[in-house]
């Protein structure tokens, strides 16, 4: 009996633990009443290159109607998809191998996300989209300097040494000539 009650206690505790942390989290967010989200999207390739920006602003307008305040974004870029995607647009199946990929980061009240999600799902201009929760800071890793540094350095060193040697021999020659002329 004792063991059973202990187990119950432990179970109750462990099941409560995440709940407590959830409450704390929501308390933290209470001040701002918004969370940070990132919307990434693939616009259909049929859209002309110059109209893509207007599509992006249309998406942003949709989000701002729900009270989104934007943090950062990247304009849609034409990319080759890693695999073929299918999507029904106006009851017709379309296959895509390319699309314009872009993303935008914004703050939004959590209860509005589902509504935004529903509205975006109705769009005919999007192959796919995804809303994820993220952080305000830039999450992209900084681009590293090209890796070939080591190789070029050694190459340069060798070249440098060679030139130094050549210079020194030339100098020696010059000095000898100078000596000869002096004599």
């Amino acid at each position: 009996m004792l063991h059973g009650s202990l187990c119950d206690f432990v179970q109750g505790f462990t099941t409560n633990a995440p709940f407590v942390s959830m409450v704390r989290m929501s308390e933290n967010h209470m001040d701002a009443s918004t969370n940070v989200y990132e919307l990434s999207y693939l616009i259909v390739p049929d859209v002309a290159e110059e109209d893509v920006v207007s599509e992006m602003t249309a998406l942003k307008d949709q989000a701002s109607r729900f009270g989104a305040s934007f943090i950062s974004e990247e304009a849609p870029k034409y990319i080759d998809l890693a695999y073929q995607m299918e999507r029904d647009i106006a009851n017709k199946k379309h296959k895509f191998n390319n699309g314009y990929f872009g993303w935008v980061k914004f703050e939004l009240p959590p209860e509005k996300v589902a509504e935004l999600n529903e509205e975006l799902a109705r769009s005919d201009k999007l192959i796919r989209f995804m809303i994820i929760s993220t952080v305000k800071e830039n999450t992209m890793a900084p681009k590293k300097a090209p890796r070939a540094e080591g190789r070029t350095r050694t190459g340069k060193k060798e070249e440098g040494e060679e030139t130094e040697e050549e210079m020194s021999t030339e100098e020696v020659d010059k000095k000898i000539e100078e000596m000869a002329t002096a004599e």
Partner: protein
Amino acid sequence: MKQDYFSANNIKYIDYKDTEILKKFLNPNAKIMGKRKTGVTAKNQRKLTTAIKRARFMGLLPYIAK
């Protein structure tokens, strides 16, 4: 890759858009490498897996290759 790639390179967030980094952790069939092979900490391996799956959904990385 013996040491954790992400802590070695000071990467705090594993972003699904950094496909060049994520590609390092895919095998030729585009399957996600195991943690024994990647040497990434368990915490980062979970983040890495999420990032790769997100990138796959958005068509940035393949589900299968070859």
